[in-house]
């Protein structure tokens, strides 16, 4: 199978300039190639980036592709942007893990599981666009429901929510959480 260099270059350029992830279908349309061929070129690119001297990474998020920097060099990027570190606090990580596994959930439900108020941590997560408001729960007071965002997937290097590590769920049934949280 011939490795098409020009197409790989075009593919890389497209991923570089795109504002959002590009689907293999769209890439195929622009490059006039079929999807399997695009996937093949994406693999070529992934392999090329897989050397230590390369600071870029092919990111797959919800079936779309984009370019990002490697986790190993994150701290340099953080220096450039004068951000101490994008790493999250323990409390924020706890809130985030509850939202990630139980989404959509209300703040009350998160508070109940943690046994402590989570408003500050939640506000940070919303501000960092790791979680977002996805509507209101159909229960008294109609509390806001939260879910994770694409930025969440990006921040943890997950391709999709299905990529999340398995959790021993069912320790606390939905009903219990819901009933006590309100």
């Amino acid at each position: 199978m011939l490795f098409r260099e020009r197409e790989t270059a075009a593919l890389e350029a497209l991923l570089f300039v795109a504002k959002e992830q590009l689907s293999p279908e769209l890439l195929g349309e622009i490059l006039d190639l079929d999807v399997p061929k695009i996937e093949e070129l994406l693999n070529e690119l992934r392999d090329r980036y897989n050397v230590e001297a390369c600071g870029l990474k092919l990111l797959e998020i919800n079936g779309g592709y984009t370019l990002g920097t490697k986790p190993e060099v994150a701290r340099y990027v953080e220096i450039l942007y004068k951000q101490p570190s994008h790493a999250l606090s323990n409390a924020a990580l706890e809130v985030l893990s509850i939202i990630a596994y139980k989404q959509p959930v209300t703040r009350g439900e998160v508070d109940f599981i943690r046994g402590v108020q989570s408003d500050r941590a939640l506000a940070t997560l919303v501000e960092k666009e790791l979680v977002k408001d996805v509507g209101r729960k159909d229960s008294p007071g109609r509390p806001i429901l939260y879910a994770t965002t694409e930025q969440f997937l990006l921040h943890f290097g997950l391709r999709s929510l299905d990529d999340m590590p398995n959790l021993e769920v069912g320790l606390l049934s939905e009903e219990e959480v819901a009933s006590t949280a309100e």
Partner: protein
Amino acid sequence: MESEYAVQFELPAYKGPLDLLLTLIQQEKVDIYDIPIARIADQFVEAIRHMGPMDMEVTTEFLVLAAQLLYIKSRDLLPKPPKNEQGQVGEEDLRQELVERLLAYRTFKQAAEVLEALETSSGRSYCREVDVEGLLADVIPEDPLKGISFDNLWKAFCQVIERAEKGEEILEVEPDEIAIDVMLADVLRRVLLHPKGLRFSLLMRIGSRMEMVVSFLALLELLQVGKVRAEQVTILSDIMIFPTKKAWEFTEEESI
């Protein structure tokens, strides 16, 4: 008092009462399903005493759990009441609920640790902020006139002239009700489109008698206000009607 020291030292790290309780249980190396309530409750209360000034709400949450622990402890210490279903169920429920909450909390605490590991190992990728305008700055925008020749433009202009010549849909109106100002605009529009002069004979469109009369009146009116002027080179030549500079001096409201 090893544990007490540790508690004091690690204080800022506690994320809540359940976290503290879980830490104490782990330090005691006891089974979460079989918590020695009396001992743990005492340690818990001791830890809170060392907390010092904290956010009121957070402290409340610690106190609520402390009260719950002390309550379970007191029930443990009291001689078992006679087979009173009410009391028996109450205590078992409290313990059971506490264990379940602790287990659920522990699960998510572990999940948070997993996420933290992911954050360092595969996460924190940064993407570019793409400046589309900058990218397209060098791109020559597609010509909006693509495929349009000067001939097309000329034809469009002829359409305008043609429409002006036809006049407004006057025939739909009763002929004897032609408003002078409608005709005034109509005549002026046609004169304006012919800066080099429009023949009087062409201006007087053959329509109904009334239309001719009204357009003639309109022309007289325009001559009088000085928006058009008439020229006749020789006695027998056509009278030519020209727009004057004043012709454009209509208020914008007239047409809007």
